[in-house]
């Protein structure tokens, strides 16, 4: 982008809040990678993900929350459009996003101390998912369904092979199995019950992530393995463990995420719980 293009800017916005973990990324250039109603993604020159959201409290761990109230689909921001970050201002097409007065928000989580896992509470989540969950390729698409099923079975006996057979499986921006693994990782991290699972995922993403899955998905999954977990996922797991009257409310908020990502993350939480309390507990748990 050159200065002439910048001079055409006519849609100036403010960034209100920024996730703390974005501080560590130094970037000057990027490209738009997906434009949606509530947000659009930027991939920086270092393949890091930054997501600019409209003014909402439903955000990911890579969020910059703007004062935009319109759908981003109604702006001129398009896939593959170049992005410039200079002097605390992000330039995209005719829009600017000024970070000068933004506050930082922290999604790094402490772990819970647990005495037991309550089976009844997970039933509430299962019921909400049955009623309001979206149709996911994981449960409907023959090929993906079979591969997911065998990958999940493998996960119980061989973590490395299981993770390898799941990461990147699914057709969309965040492949469905990655969302399931995100739900499982968040549950295991917060309950402090399966460090080996978290470590294996982190190692796999660090060594193979760029080849195995989309860059957006890799970034979000990596955050979870570092304990950087969005409010929506955190609140749902908290409600399952300590605040059952709010499970439905929290679950329905998570189900609104993405096209099917929320549903698949919920599934991941349920699967993680079932592994914890099931009769055939994997050796790594």
């Amino acid at each position, binding site marked *: 982008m050159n200065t002439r293009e910048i001079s055409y800017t006519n849609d100036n916005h403010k960034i209100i809040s920024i996730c703390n973990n974005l501080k560590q990324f130094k970037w000057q250039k990027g*490209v738009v*990678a*997906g434009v*949606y109603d509530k947000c659009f*993604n930027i*991939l920086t020159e270092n393949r890091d993900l930054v997501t600019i959201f409209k003014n909402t409290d439903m955000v990911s761990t890579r969020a910059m929350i703007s004062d935009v*109230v*319109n*759908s981003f*689909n*109604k702006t001129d921001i398009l*896939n*593959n459009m170049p992005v410039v970050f200079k002097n605390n201002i992000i330039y995209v097409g005719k829009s600017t996003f000024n970070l000068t007065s933004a506050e930082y928000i922290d999604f790094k989580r402490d772990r819970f101390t647990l005495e037991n896992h309550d089976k009844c509470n997970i039933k509430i989540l299962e019921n909400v998912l*049955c*009623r*309001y*969950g*979206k*149709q*996911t*390729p994981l449960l*409907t*698409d023959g*090929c*993906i369904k079979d*591969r997911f099923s065998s990958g999940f079975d493998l996960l119980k006996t061989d973590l490395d092979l299981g993770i390898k*057979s*799941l*990461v*990147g*499986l*699914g*057709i*969309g*921006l965040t*492949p*469905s*199995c990655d969302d399931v693994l995100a739900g499982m990782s968040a549950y295991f991290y917060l309950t402090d019950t399966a460090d080996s699972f978290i470590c294996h995922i982190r190692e796999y993403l660090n060594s193979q992530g*760029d*080849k*195995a*899955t*989309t*860059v*957006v998905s890799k970034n979000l999954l990596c955050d979870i393995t570092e304990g950087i977990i969005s409010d929506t996922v955190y609140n749902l797991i908290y409600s399952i463990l300590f605040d059952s009257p709010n499970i439905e409310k929290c679950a329905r908020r998570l189900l609104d995420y*993405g*096209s*099917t990502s929320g*549903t698949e993350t919920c599934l991941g939480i349920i699967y993680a719980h079932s592994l914890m309390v099931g009769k055939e507990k994997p050796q790594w748990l």
Partner: protein
Amino acid sequence: MVVKNYILENCYYDSVFLMRLARKLSEKDNIENASIGMGTPLNKDTITDLGLNASEMDTTGPNDLIIAIKGTDEEACEAAREDFFTLVNERETQTSKNSFRSIAGAKSSNPDANLAIISVAGEYAAIEAKRALQNDMNVFMFSDNVPIEDEVELKKLALSRGKFMMGPGCGLSFINGVAIGLCSMVNRGDIGLAGASGSGIQEVMVLVHRNGFGISHAIGTGGRDMSDEVGGISMIQSIRALSEDKDTKVIALISKPPAQSSLIKVIDEIKKCPKPVVVHFLNGDNTLLKENSILYSETFDDTARMVMELSCGHSVEMKKIFDDDVDIDAEVKKFSGDQKYIRAILCGGSLTDEMQILWNKDMGPIYSNAAFDSKLLLDDPFTSVENTVIDIGDETFTKGRAHVAIDPTARVNRFIKEARDRETAVIYLDFLLGYALHGDPASVMAEAIIAEKKRAEEEGRHLCVIATICGSDMDPQDFDKQAQILKDAGVILADTNKTAVEHAMKIIKTLEER
């Protein structure tokens, strides 16, 4: 066959959109299969498993989108690729041109708009409806799960502004010749309908249409309108509106059983109405109606016949479309010794109700997930017991999908399950036509019917499938074509829900007596 892979670098779409695109491309003539997904190694394996891999795929990375197509020749694949871009552009154009941030914005862009259709999650629906009413618009609310106190407030607000609040949970309306929601297209005429019974109202509408009469308006009121809390606000408003409407000569009210307090208010309103009114409360106690000399009926066929006779002033013989002379004995001879039950899998909730009423009256108990009698409520809605009728449109089965009359997957699966039950003799299906409903419901089911009939035959059984088509010749699905597809699949077609149930009862009765 030719396989082509088209690669779009750094291209990102959500999975539901991609699934829909792949399905649309697969349905094209000359295309055998299509798959679209990000180029992760595991997705590439999946595409390979489907036999949709080509050399172009080898160099892709996980951030590239792969459009994999198998078609009769290169031209077919290329046409499908172009369709992909057309569909993507359509979505982007629609998003930018036809979407508004608020109801006020939409109203200011289209000042003549006088109806808002609301289909957002229940928790947000009331506030949107209020905004629409405050912007001088009538409301058709498809959304449900709206608190009843909000419903009362909205209906009172609508009333005070001279507007209609149709819903919450309103399946269809037909206003000034416009079909709204999941509604069939019918001729206009002098018969006005109001009530809370989506498929029931549709059944009466199409019967009226088939017999050469027409509908002035059909006003949906929402399922809770006749409750104690709501007090029939919309029903009473509808009676008044139809009473004042110069194009309406006869009125029929169709609803689930009302609360006593609402019934009394509605009876008072009917008595004030100068036009003839026929009341049809499904499984309702008609004592009060009789005492007040109000006309009533107990089946949709009778409701349709009565309003037509009131409209023309003489008796009407219902037109027959399908042969109702089914050779019961010939059917019964084909069943194995184990086969004895009916399994009805219906999209229409009111048709399910009517079937229960008819069956209970003539045959005895029938189990259901929507049973009137709690003793006949299925413990597990996914497992039938003896004679069973399933309201497959119930949320239990759709799990976040569209209504089963739009996305028939849940019914196809249930049909296969029932067809393979060795005790199933008859399966009864309804096919709803109209705008916003599935474009070709008969074809979707015919494939399964043919396969399961063949399977049953190979196993020494016989599968009798009865169906009714609740739609008109003006519906976009093409009534005659739907009927032909079902006939070709060996289905016995009945004109109405009542006739279909009567055929089924005769068969099951004969089976019981053999």
